């Protein structure tokens, strides 16, 4: 069995950032394991721009953004293994890898960073009503067909869900000559970034229907039409509001889910993000196994993924250098109006500032974010606008940490 100090599962934005950070902090024996034939993960197919505004203060395409990190990985001579899939994992950090050329290999790692990204919620998962015809496809898969392989999945298209990939694909498909008839969103608000609604829908006169979803897909072989029906505030279809739309394709942009099937092998506790439960160093509840990026919680922009990768890389480096002195855990709890908070725990012995990343449950205005512990106010921050599609980051300075009791909670309160 081969050994390695730090094994990073996934060579996308999170994995590369983690590797670079750990290397910079003195960890030399690193291996990035990437299933694809290139580093970069999903960014390889994201040929639109808008990446890097925070990280580089410029607008880059996905491939441009990732290539800057690939360059650093190369310059720092960080080893990586392509066409390699981690197929199993133990709590003792024995990793089994299936590699295209070398077959099945085993590594014993001292620390592991999970950076496996996310996957798209499928037609099956949302139990789409009606026929089982072709022509129903998730937005990311349609993007891969188009941007990597050069094939259009449809000509007359309805998009269900206003997630960012769906919006990006509405524009992309229109530019390639397809007719995007409309975008339909179950919720009364969009789940995409405002800039994407403006630039991908409004600029192309593509209507966005809110509180409306697919009540039936119809097609013997290939999709022939969809029925879009309005929903009430309990998400139930309202009779008599059907819109029948002839189309050959239904693109789904109905959510991303952390891809964490490997965690099943190690009984790793998860949180409401559907990713692993972690502390402020992005360490999961399994000793020496860290998690970051979209496999931890789904991010809106890649810059934040990169940042979180660095945090995990830093955590793993400290772990490997025996600098993580673990004490009691302070539980972080999302309360009124808050959907989730990462991290879910803070270590009592922590010596650094902690950033809380959270999402609100529904769009709200003029709110105070209240951070409190044991009934004591730790921080109160005014937030004029909060929407579920935009992750919020709030820093808690390290000198506030001694004020915390066994748990700390985040909630919203009307101003």
């Amino acid at each position, binding site marked *: 069995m081969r050994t390695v100090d730090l094994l990073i599962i996934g060579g996308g934005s999170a994995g590369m950032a983690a590797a670079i950070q750990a290397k910079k902090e003195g960890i030399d024996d690193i291996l990035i394991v990437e*299933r694809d034939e290139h580093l970069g993960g999903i960014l390889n197919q994201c040929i639109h721009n808008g990446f890097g505004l925070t990280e580089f203060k410029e607008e880059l395409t996905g491939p441009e953004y990732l290539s800057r990190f690939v360059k650093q990985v190369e310059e720092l001579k960080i080893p990586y293994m392509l*066409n390699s*899939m981690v*197929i*199993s994992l133990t709590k003792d950090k024995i990793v*089994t890898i*299936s*590699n*295209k050329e*070398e*077959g*099945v290999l085993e590594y014993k790692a001292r620390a592991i960073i999970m950076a496996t990204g996310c*996957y*798209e919620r*499928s*037609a*099956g*998962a949302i*139990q*789409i*009503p*009606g*026929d*089982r*015809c*072709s*022509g129903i*496809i*998730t937005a*990311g*898969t349609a993007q*891969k*067909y*188009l941007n*990597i*392989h*050069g*094939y*259009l*999945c*449809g*000509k007359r298209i309805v998009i269900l869900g206003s997630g960012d990939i769906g919006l990006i694909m509405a524009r992309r498909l229109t530019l*390639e*000559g397809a007719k995007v008839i409309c975008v339909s969103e179950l919720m009364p608000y969009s789940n995409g970034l405002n800039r994407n609604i403006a630039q991908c829908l409004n600029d192309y006169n593509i209507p966005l229907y809110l509180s409306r979803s697919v009540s*039936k897909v119809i097609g013997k*072989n*290939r999709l022939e039409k969809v029925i879009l029906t309005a929903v009430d505030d309990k998400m139930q279809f309202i009779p008599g509001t059907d819109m029948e739309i002839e189309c*050959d*394709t239904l693109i789904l942009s109905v959510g991303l*889910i952390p*891809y964490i*099937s490997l965690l*099943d092998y190690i009984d790793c506790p998860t949180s409401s993000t559907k990713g692993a439960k972690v502390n402020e160093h992005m360490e999961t509840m399994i000793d020496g196994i860290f998690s970051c990026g979209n496999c931890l919680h789904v991010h809106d922009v890649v810059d934040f993924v990169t940042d979180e990768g660095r945090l995990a890389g830093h955590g793993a480096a400290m772990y490997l250098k025996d600098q993580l002195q673990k004490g009691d855990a302070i539980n972080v709890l999302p309360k009124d109006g808050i959907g989730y908070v990462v991290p879910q725990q803070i270590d009592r012995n922590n010596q650094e500032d902690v950033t809380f990343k959270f999402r609100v449950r529904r769009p709200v205005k003029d709110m105070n974010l209240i951070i409190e512990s044991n009934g004591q106010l730790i921080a109160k921050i005014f937030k004029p606008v909060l929407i579920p599609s935009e992750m919020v980051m709030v820093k808690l300075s390290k000198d506030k940490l001694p004020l915390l009791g066994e748990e700390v909670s985040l909630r919203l309160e009307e101003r």
Partner: protein
Amino acid sequence: MERFDVLIIGAGVTGAMIARNLAKYDIKVALLDKENDVGNLTSNANSAIVHSGYDPVPGTNKAKFNVLGNAMFDQICDELDVSFSRVGSLTVALYDEQLKILEDLAKRSKENGVKVELLNAEQVKKMEPNINPCVKGALFAPTAGIVDVFNFVVHAVENAVDNGVKLFLNQKVTSINKEKDYYVVKTDKETFESKMVINAAGCFADKIAEMVEPIDWKITPRKGEYFVLDHYKAGLVNHVIFPLPSEKGKGILVTMTTSGNYLVGPSSELDEDPSDYTTDPMTLRNVRAQASEMVPSIPFNQVIRVFAGSRPTCTRHDFVIEYSKKDKYFINVGGIESPGFVSSPAIGEYVVEQLVKPVLSLKEKKDFNPRVRRYHRLYSAMNDGDYKFVNEHENYSEIICNCEKVTLGEILDALDRSVPPQSVKALKRRTRAGYGRCQGGFCQPRVVLILAKHYGVSPLEINYDGEFSPILLKKIKEGK
């Protein structure tokens, strides 16, 4: 024109088993199906259960063939390299008044020759920790099992074809006429001649039978809708869990599958259209409620797919396995609804030995090989902890489907066999590529390219399922 000795209409599990039994003899056999894959309809959309036989009315064909068929599964699944496991079934009583019905079922089981055991509440809870704590007792049938229904049919036909049977897909029979001493079977594409015809057309068996003569039975299809859960964790249930049977069938069950997923269903709705595979939220809500009564903690957030299947329910309420009235050269095998899958090996044997043999002279082949070439899978290698084959063979460590860990080697092997998959769905059934939690989100583009390359066609011509179900509609530029 080549004249066949026996022509079978329908390559579902019944037709497949008849074909495989006929393949043991030195005769010319044709197997026709209107779909572009074998086992494409009823045989691939069911509960995937090898029933024990506690439920059919004693003395019926269903009771007889169920019990005979069940006993044949170990050997046949070994020969065909198909996953099968005798996990046993529990038919549970949730109310005191149901205990009497369990006792009646136990008596019926005894009459049918099925080994069962009545369990008290404590015994059931021990065997199934997630069962409704109100459970009053259960009927345990240890011989019940779960089987990979997709590959059972595919491998059976593969084995039949390897032994000389000719398979014709995409052939929808339009007329059947008797000429002197043979039948002329016309399809939408070709004309076939055969001395004997066996109708195993599933939900369409009555339509086929009526092409020959008026019949006194009819297929009244019943649709069943299911949930498929991810294989997220072992132990939600450890046996096939049935409610008490009713007139509509064995009821909504909860079971694990041979791939470690869980299956919840089916509903039972009369549906005139046997090709209706739509799913409907109201029906599924009802399935969910009924299943949750038995196993309250079913995690429906782990659902990765819903589907519907069609049962070829017959007005006779039993299997129709008989010569046509006017001619022993035409055999009807209809109404093969549950417990049809488990019965199929026994039906296949019966049809050949008891109905074909008296009519045609059958001479055994010396070189009949009951086995398919062994299937190798990375997933099985992982379970066995033995990577020798994987490491020694090219492509078996190149993963195409991440969720189900399906390798290129497995896909190319499926394409290299005698019943190769022609669609994405056909390949998925054989290899499980696309069956996992992402439902092909990651692997489908790779699968489409592999199929296109193998068949030497453009990816635009690759179908998702049946004919005319392309995935891609237009090429925009040179991609890789």
